[in-house]
């Protein structure tokens, strides 16, 4: 299949605030700071920006961002839903808008504070539920971790996965964060004994199977490939982009279908690889969405790094660990050990791997895979040098 957007655009600027808990600045302020840094990183001016794509869950609106940062007249703007599934899609929509001429300099971003209204939807549900929540919440399946734990238990039962496999994931990402000065878990080691002794959150998942809770913001700037060649940074070309809502999808509670373990990543991967010059065997570094550790084996299978049911065993022998693993994954620490900003930090780390500036740099990586939320309508990006 020929893709109309293949290598037509590139990420040329990245920006991020510090990560923390209880940051004083508002989500709007954090968004504006990250966007401003990304514009500077690209060597562009705010007035050059004429495209905006954001998460629909974003609290700062496009008009506010544009008025604060002093952006130019905006000719393309859009929003992507479904929380953690949206990260790669905001970049992909920006790339499509630039490739089709609807705008020339697009910004995509995510700003999030755990204390902000709307940041923890599970804790704010009204008492009379309609829609999909009425089939799970009344019974105490309340939080995202409960919803994924249900899938994780079934996965472990069907394929013989164990907590040792989930520990492989948590420990690999922690090791990467230990090298990353920006990471929440910089220089804070985690041992297998720590993992196995941790308190339960939703059995079979413990504390360290969960992502962090983080305040912070990140942004990227996307321009055409032609323009990218004249800018400051080595371009990370948007080689392939895909989204998916799998058949009979239900948000986070994808149980009400024939094959709940064939999640959104399978459908997303089909388009991604068919639009790409690279195949899974060519990929030497990946940023896989990790709100919860069991999403990693599911994504390894969905994106074709192994067969169905082999994702847990894939993590053995340090396979996810930099520098010697077969697929160093979440090389900044990911959502579990760098920061959880709805997976947008994975996009920036994917760009750093192309630039050669990661604190766990994979030498000579020609392409860099980034994925968004498994368990929700999702998206993925394949960047290339």
């Amino acid at each position: 299949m020929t893709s109309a957007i293949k290598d037509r655009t590139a990420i040329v600027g990245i920006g991020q605030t510090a990560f923390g808990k209880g940051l004083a600045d508002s989500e709007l302020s954090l968004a504006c700071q990250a966007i401003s840094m990304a514009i500077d990183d690209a060597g562009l001016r705010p007035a050059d920006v004429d495209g905006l794509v954001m998460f629909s869950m974003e609290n700062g609106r496009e008009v506010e961002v544009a008025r604060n940062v002093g952006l130019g007249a905006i000719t393309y703007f859009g929003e992507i839903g479904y929380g953690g599934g949206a990260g790669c899609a905001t970049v992909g929509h920006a790339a499509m808008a630039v490739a089709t001429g609807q705008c020339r300099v697009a910004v995509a971003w995510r700003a999030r504070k755990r204390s902000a209204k709307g940041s923890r939807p599970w804790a704010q549900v009204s008492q009379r539920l309609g829609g999909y929540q009425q089939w799970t919440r009344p019974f105490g399946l309340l939080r995202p971790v409960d919803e994924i734990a249900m899938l994780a238990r079934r996965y472990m039962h069907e394929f013989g996965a164990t907590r040792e496999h989930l520990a492989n994931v948590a420990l690999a990402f922690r090791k990467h964060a230990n090298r990353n000065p920006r990471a929440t878990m910089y220089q804070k080691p985690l041992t297998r004994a720590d993992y196995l002794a941790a308190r339960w959150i939703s059995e079979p998942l413990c504390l360290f199977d969960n992502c962090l809770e983080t305040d912070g913001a990140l942004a990227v700037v996307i321009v055409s490939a032609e323009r990218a060649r004249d800018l400051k940074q080595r371009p990370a070309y948007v080689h392939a982009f895909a989204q998916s809502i799998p058949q009979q999808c239900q948000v986070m509670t994808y149980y009400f279908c024939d094959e709940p373990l064939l999640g959104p990543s399978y459908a997303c991967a089909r388009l991604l690889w068919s639009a790409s010059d690279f195949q899974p065997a060519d990929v030497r570094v990946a940023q896989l969405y990790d709100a919860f550790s069991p999403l990693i084996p599911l994504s390894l299978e969905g994106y074709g790094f192994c067969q169905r049911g082999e994702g847990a065993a894939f993590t053995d022998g340090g396979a996810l660990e930099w520098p010697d693993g077969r697929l160093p994954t979440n090389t900044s620490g990911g959502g579990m050990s760098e920061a959880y900003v709805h997976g947008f930090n994975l996009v920036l780390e994917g760009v750093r791997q192309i630039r050669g500036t990661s604190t766990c740099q994979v030498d000579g990586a020609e392409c860099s895979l980034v994925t968004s939320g498994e368990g929700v309508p999702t998206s993925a990006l394949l960047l290339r040098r």
Partner: protein
Amino acid sequence: MDPDFLLPDLEDEDAGPFWQGTARGELLVQACSGCGRRRMPPRPMCPTCRSLEHSWHALSGRGTIWSFVIAHPPLLPAYQALAPYNVITVTLDEDPGLRLVGNLVARPDGPINEVDPATIRIGAPVRVVFQRIGDISLPRWMLEESRQSAVGSRQ
């Protein structure tokens, strides 16, 4: 029962008849009038034949445990008071494509934290019971010991 449990809306456009059914002690699912397929959760259109017509069919209320979790804090207050408690997903006997989320209880009116988590097994046969909370009856599930050997290998 704590009044702060999250409860469904009896008047929900699509699901109202399901909750009206549980209040009568019936487990109902939509069945398409065009192609006959059952579907859960309820919705206006059949994804197989696109018919807008359906009726509600009573199921036997028997199934097997497809998966389960044991929830620990932090939780919403009404639930945290019961933690750790179980939540199970049940595959219904009539149609393996139909699943419901609920809780395993030791008695028809027992709490959701009474069954020893170490005894819960994927594949275990269960049958539905109904527990009243305010104006809503929630389906819960009890182990069906007599069917253990019959379906034990199916999982």
